[in-house]
């Protein structure tokens, strides 16, 4: 059973197409990693899935609902999809705890007490409970990203989208976030992750998609794609990553 089906998705900015016919699916509980060089459209694709960027054509079906249909309230869809940004994007004027309870209270309409319980529970998962009264800018990037992951988990999403969650972080801070994400992955939640962390992808991903110039050019299980890529473009890209390691 698929939690996400994208078909023939075309989208872009102004008149320039960025996604040129993307089709992909994520099954329930499946963890899919999306890779590709910068400018290949990975972030745009994730943003399209919750219509932060408006697709031009194609279809996006989340948990059986085509979110591009007329009359769809996109806010309702977004309440069921977690989104983690590269630059964390916490609300700097609120405490860590408030960052997590706010969407529960105003979007999910939970009462204060239940929202608090839920928030403390997800902060526990990411190991940030003892920072609950701090403000985001008082924390390290890695800690902020863990709070952002908690905020995305709090709404109990059917699908978690992560847009390069570690690429804004210093190397020594990456590991703590990846560790958190490994824990989250173990909980059986469906995830679509844009990342270039090969070890992490190999550990966590059921499937890896490789994207270039707005289309998916190759996909497969991580070890197959990493060690025996079929397409020359994939091989060249992986080489650049390996060289960096």
């Amino acid at each position, binding site marked *: 059973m698929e939690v996400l089906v994208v078909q023939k998705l075309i989208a872009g900015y102004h008149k320039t197409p960025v996604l040129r016919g993307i089709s992909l699916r994520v099954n329930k509980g499946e963890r899919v990693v999306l890779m590709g060089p910068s400018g290949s459209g990975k972030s745009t694709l994730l943003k399209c899935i919750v219509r*932060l960027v408006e697709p031009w054509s194609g279809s996006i079906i989340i948990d059986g609902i085509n979110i591009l249909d007329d009359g769809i309230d996109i*806010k309702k869809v977004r309440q069921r999809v977690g989104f983690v940004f590269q630059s964390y*994007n916490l609300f*700097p*004027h609120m405490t860590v705890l408030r960052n997590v309870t706010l969407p529960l209270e105003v979007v999910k309409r939970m009462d204060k007490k239940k929202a608090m319980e839920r928030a403390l529970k997800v902060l526990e998962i990411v190991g940030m409970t003892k920072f609950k009264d*701090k403000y*985001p*800018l008082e924390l390290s990037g890695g800690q902020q990203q863990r709070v952002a992951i908690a905020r995305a988990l709090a*709404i109990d999403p059917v699908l978690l989208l992560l847009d390069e969650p570690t690429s804004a972080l210093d190397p020594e801070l990456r590991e703590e976030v990846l560790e958190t994400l490994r824990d989250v992955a173990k909980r059986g939640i469906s995830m679509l992750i844009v990342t270039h962390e090969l070890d992490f992808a190999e550990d966590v991903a059921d499937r890896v998609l490789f994207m270039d110039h707005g289309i998916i050019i190759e996909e497969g299980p991580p070890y197959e794609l990493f060690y025996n890529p079929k397409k020359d473009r994939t091989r060249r890209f992986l080489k650049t990553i390996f060289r960096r390691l």
Partner: protein
Amino acid sequence: MQETIFFILRIIPYLAQGLMITFYVSITSFIIGLAIASILTPLRVFLTPSLSLIVRSYIEILRGTPLLVQLFIIYFGLPSLGVKFDPLTAGIIALSLNSSAYQAEILRASIKAIPESQYYSAEALGMSTIQVYRYVILPQALRAAIPALVNELVTLVKESSLVSIIGVAELTRRGEYVVAYTFRALEAYLAVAILYFIVCMIMSQVSKILERKFRIPGYERGVF
């Protein structure tokens, strides 16, 4: 020298009464200006470009013409259309309208300064546009606007001296009265200047306190 100081001390109670009117005029105008700006800003942010052109023109015209001329139009000009105000009211109207244009610019700039990522993040959580502004954008934008708004208030206190020309007995006008009776222009206007200066100093101190009070913890490390 000593005599000069005594003279200044003697006229200060009289001038202080004028200072109260200066306060009244500038603070009232600031509040009315802020109210108008709070209506103009959302119109400017949300309306289509053609409709917001009206708001933009209002702002540009008020910012692009001298306050004194605006004051003259309202006090001396409008009576020929049958609209007549007493000096105090005319002064407050002119200052309010003028200030509303500047305050609208301040509010718009503060909203524009909030990075797009904050909108994305709030929208991705499923918030409605109203919620995005209410919980995420405005609390940050208003904090960012505090220094500029206090600066605008300080400007108003100083510019309110213009209403002395149409006969409002505020601080500057009272200085003129003292000069008329005593012919001691230097001392009288020095005393007036000192009072303006003290008030403006106090206001910028208050601004610093407000900034500190509403500071976002950790902000000085910078992130945006």
